[in-house]
């Protein structure tokens, strides 16, 4: 285990301290310990989704789901209203004696609009709330971080955290038995 965090100068503004793990299990355990230790501003980086991390990091942010629900409902009402308005007000047509507002025929349009608006809301609200697109992110200042999209698992405690302390946090990360610890320049 090599710790090259202390090799660098302390004067550089820090984004945080990053620990590297070999297996997803170690990362999940580390994330849980980090949360229990009282840290709030930390993030985990993995090559593929790990469902256990949600629970380990105690992530309960469901704003995207809420936006999607609102978008879906708007699409649903909008789609049905559009079909009804066109067929009964804008261009009323008698089709085989059916009522102008022919509900079964409007369901596909209503359904498609629900999915379309719901889906677009989900995609864009996710992008906006994640602050994407982000051309620059500090974590890429660590050379080994490219492995986060290959086979390594990373945990970064950010310097904005109230509990963050350069040496104490490093000692804490060391107690989690990482492969490496690195300083992340801002």
């Amino acid at each position, binding site marked *: 285990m090599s710790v090259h965090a202390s090799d660098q100068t302390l004067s550089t503004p820090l984004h945080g301290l990053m620990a590297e793990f070999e*297996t*997803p*299990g170690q990362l*999940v*355990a580390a994330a849980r310990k980090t949360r229990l230790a009282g840290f709030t501003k930390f993030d985990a980086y993995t090559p593929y989704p790990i*469902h*256990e991390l949600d629970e*380990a990091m105690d992530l309960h942010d469901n704003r995207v789901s809420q936006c999607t629900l609102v978008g879906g409902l708007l699409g649903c009402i909008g789609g049905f209203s559009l079909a009804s308005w066109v067929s009964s007000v804008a261009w009323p047509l008698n089709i*085989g*004696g*059916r009522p102008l507002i*022919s509900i*079964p*025929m409007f*369901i*596909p349009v209503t359904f498609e609009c629900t999915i379309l608006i719901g889906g677009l809301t989900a995609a864009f609200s996710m992008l906006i709330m994640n602050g994407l697109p982000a051309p620059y992110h500090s974590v890429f200042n660590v050379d080994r971080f490219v492995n986060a999209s290959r086979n390594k698992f990373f945990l970064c405690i950010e310097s904005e955290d109230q509990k963050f302390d350069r040496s104490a946090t490093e000692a804490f990360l060391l107690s989690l038995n990482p492969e490496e610890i690195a300083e992340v320049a801002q």
Partner: protein
Amino acid sequence: MTTTDQSYATAPQLAETLKRNSTIAAFIGLVFLGLTVSGIFLPGGSLEQFLRSYLIGFWLWFGVGAASLLILMTQFLTGGAWGIIIRRQCEAGAKTLYVMCFGFVPLLVWSKHLYWWTTPAGTADKVIQAKALYLNYPFLVGRTLIYSAFLMGLTWLLTSLSKKEDETKSTAISALLEKYSAPGVLIFFILMTFCSVDFMMTLEPYWYSTIYGFMMIIGWVLTALAIIIANTTILQQEEPLRHGLTSRHYHDLGKLLFAMVMMWAYLNFSQLIITWSGNLPTEIVWYIKRWNGGWGWVAMILLFGHFILPFLLLISQPAKRNPAFIRAVAIYLVVVHAVDVFSLVEPNFTSWQAPKFALSWLDITAPLGFGGLWMALFYRNLPVMPLLPLGAPDLQKALNHGRSH
């Protein structure tokens, strides 16, 4: 047996519970089936009414058995933790077909009192005569024999191979199970489509719908999944599933149930929209009889109770992960699906010019009677084998599903 096998042994209390459940269910089944049969002679009943109610009860629960076989084959083909933990329940459910298939006999024997096309007046009808190549009694009997032989034969083949897999732990047998399941699913869908046509669609012999068979099968799968989920919450109270199950397993089963609720609505709506667009006299009759004269309320119960309500209940993730909640939804879905089968059968016997809602007390006792019988058989079949498939190659992986590494 190895020590690992020992640790998956069924807890003695659970074996007792299953035995007791079987006895209670058998008692309920006998009482209500007895009441249904006596309905032939009691006021408000007749042989005709008995057969209609019998068909409702039989179709609902025969379907649960058949769908158990279908889910069993599906889980052999797809793999996955959800399938391994419910495999033994699917096997126990499929084995009820050994008895349920004999339920076709009264329908065939008294066909003239239920299926108009088999009566002399029906066979003399011009439209029926044009369809006589398919709609003739000897062929109907022959087809029923094929359905029953297929269902019972495949159940026997798969359950005995699965038993062998348990004993030998041979992956060659696991591969065989997959190999037989693939054509099994295909033939199942083809044969059960014909079976749905023969015993349900020909109640209205002029009318036809190409999506009908699929609609029936998805209704069966929905009911079977609901029963399996509700029963899983019972099994989970003791070993071996007590420490084997996590909320993640319920989440997966809940997602499947949710998918079936949507599939049911999708298929029913597809049939409605095509009929609505065409508005042809032979096709629209089916909906006129199910919309006017009080039947519209049943349609509304199905729209809201069979789709919108369960859709809203099952859409939330915490709800699907909560065993008590999902059990309540599952039991509710079985009841509401009985209403669906009722609305598939009874309106056929009202006139389309002046439809009139009619509910016989036999329509309630027959599904309860068959339900009791089915559950009794299910609980009798369940303890015969270990509750987890010990020979399944992915058993450990399935049990670790949803746990931190």
